[in-house]
């Protein structure tokens, strides 16, 4: 299996993890070629996660912005976001490999909750690493994980956020890999993780492509998804990569604005670097230390980006743009009021750019926006934001 996407990807990890990664790669390759495994995965996606998710034609949005807008409703999945697709896949793989303990990193807590959920389902011992800052500001998700039987470890190191929680999960994994499976939540990390996450998120575009062909009898003109590490985006792009007529757009978080330095747009201003086992675009300071990302959306608040996105950007197959906190929050409100859907703030970034893009399109063109998650988790942040109190992320 190819370890690189162009010059991005690779395995920038300690020697003590190299055999573990090899073992994982072999197990993953065999699993996805095993009909029984893929059937079991499909079974849980249907019966437990609630797939397939609708491709919803947003009529009023379409009228307002002047092109046909479809929403891929990942927010309707069990646990409220696309994260569970990947968790089910990786946990079935862990089970197949005979591992009974799993660890995960989490920022806002969505991937942590999804992993805790899957671990409860498959009766695995689950530990979630979460930065001390995030533990404080996402107390409800900490509580949810604990209800599901997971242990949450508060990480006090570096900036006490997702990047540091990921470091700590990698360190713990290096110590315990002999009996522990590391469930990475985004399309990041050392090979084979980015490939694995793409494979287990591919279902998003597999469904969406068939759904749009059924409804419109042709491919969409534009496909848009938000990008933090890039898991919903890679899942949303996967089945359209070989359709050159489909324009693929990833939307990063511009935070307070790219020009302020307070943003999370690794591909706008980052340069290639290595972090968390991969080489990709990375926000760095003048000494090559990793710079803290900034976004109102905890899920996009990551200084790097998945290596395949870096490759898609350089090759020109996908383009990457950004939306500010304000643009995202305005778009969030529009979706609430126009369609009666409260999106996650992450997904609202995709919407913000989608609305801009729609105005440049014609009425008979179509666009799919990945609505990666629901906004229930964000209501406090939203309330504070609109009350002018700022926010903690």
């Amino acid at each position, binding site marked *: 299996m190819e*370890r690189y996407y162009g010059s991005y990807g*690779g*395995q*920038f*990890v*300690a*020697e*003590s993890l*190299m*055999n*573990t990664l090899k073992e994982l790669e072999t197990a993953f390759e065999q699993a996805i070629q095993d009909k029984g495994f893929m059937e079991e995965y499909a079974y849980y996606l249907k019966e437990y996660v609630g797939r397939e998710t609708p491709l919803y034609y947003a009529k009023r949005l379409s009228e307002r912005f002047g092109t046909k807008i479809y929403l891929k409703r990942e927010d309707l999945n069990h646990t409220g976001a696309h994260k569970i697709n990947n968790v089910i896949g990786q946990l079935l793989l862990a089970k197949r490999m005979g591992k009974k303990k799993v660890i995960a990193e989490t920022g806002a807590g969505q991937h942590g909750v999804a992993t805790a959920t899957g671990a409860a389902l498959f009766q695995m011992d689950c530990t979630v690493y979460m930065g001390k800052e995030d533990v404080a500001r996402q107390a409800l998700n900490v509580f949810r994980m604990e209800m599901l039987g997971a242990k949450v470890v508060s990480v006090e*190191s*570096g900036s006490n956020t997702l*990047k*540091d929680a990921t*470091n700590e999960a*990698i*360190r*713990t994994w*290096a*110590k*315990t*890999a*002999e009996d522990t499976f590391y469930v990475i939540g985004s399309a990041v990390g050392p090979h084979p993780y980015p490939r694995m996450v793409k494979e287990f998120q591919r279902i998003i575009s597999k469904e969406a492509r068939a759904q749009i062909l059924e409804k419109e009898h042709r491919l969409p003109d534009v496909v848009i998804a938000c990008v933090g590490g890039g898991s919903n985006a890679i899942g949303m792009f996967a089945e359209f990569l070989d359709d050159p007529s489909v324009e693929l757009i990833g939307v990063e978080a511009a935070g307070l604005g790219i020009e302020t330095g307070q943003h999370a747009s690794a591909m706008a201003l980052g*340069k*290639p*670097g*290595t*972090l*968390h*086992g991969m*080489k990709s675009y*990375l926000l*760095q300071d*003048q*000494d*090559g*230390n*990793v710079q803290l990302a900034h976004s109102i959306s905890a899920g996009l608040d990551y200084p790097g980006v998945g290596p395949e996105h870096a490759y898609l950007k350089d090759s020109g197959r996908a383009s990457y743009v950004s939306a500010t906190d304000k643009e995202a929050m305005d778009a969030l409100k529009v979706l609430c009021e126009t369609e009666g859907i409260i999106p996650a703030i992450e997904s609202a970034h995709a919407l913000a750019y989608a609305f801009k893009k729609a105005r440049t399109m014609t009425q008979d063109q179509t666009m799919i926006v990945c609505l990666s998650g629901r906004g229930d988790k964000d209501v406090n942040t939203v309330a504070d934001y609109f009350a002018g109190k700022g926010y903690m992320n």
Partner: protein
Amino acid sequence: MNRIEQQMQNLQRRGEKAMITYITAGLPDLETTKKLLKAQAQAGVDVVELGIPFSDPIADGPVIQDASFRSIQNGTNVENVFGMVDELRQTCEVPIVFMMYYNTALHYGLEAFVDQCVRTGVDGLIIPDLPLEEQGELRAILDQKDGAPILIQLVSPVSKERIPMILKQARGFVYCVSSMGVTGQKADFHKNILAYLREVKAASNIPIMLGFGIRRAADVGPMRELVDGAIIGSYFIQLMEESGFDEQTAKEYVSTFKRELNAFAYEPELERKSTSDLEQFIEEQGIQLRY
């Protein structure tokens, strides 16, 4: 000849074991780092590892993480570490190895980075997040520069069939990691450490050094016939912090460790002991074996 290789040759000729220490550069400041390096060289340290602080040190435990974090806050970066090495080299020839993360060199520019190593006299690089498979790009540059530092190879207790492949590329010495995971932790060695060290020793034609979790010479005593020296990192940093980065303390620690390390009588017995007998002997010394 490269200073590390020269030093290893000298030690081998004298039948001595090597002692290598680690300190994070710039803690509490680069001037003190320079003095500490000089003091250790005077006390007989064989090689010094100099940690270039990085924001995300995934191979390090809490002690070195914290040291790196504070050093960065103090303004340490690879450029001013090069400046310090440059000054040190006017009076001190101790072999220097940079312990660093790949991104620091990548960001600096690999070629410019190697040129600076050559210019200032950095003799080796330990890059724990750069396993063999990812070394090609850097190695291509190292190979074409005269006097370029040696890329030190690391092996771990779970490297197994990778060992011969890794050793093929190795020069200077082999860094044998004593346990899974990260630097620091007290002397808890991997449960299969003996079989592992024997395997590396059999396959290696350069000296092998044991690192991670070593505090005193006695920690390596039971394994002394299997290794050619020891690397002390987290413990040494703690000692430095507790003593207020005192040069005298550093000197005493180095000379005591070196003396004790080389005072162990040669015990052919130890080499012949079965793995389980030796394991028992190790645990009697208060060293835990686990993973």
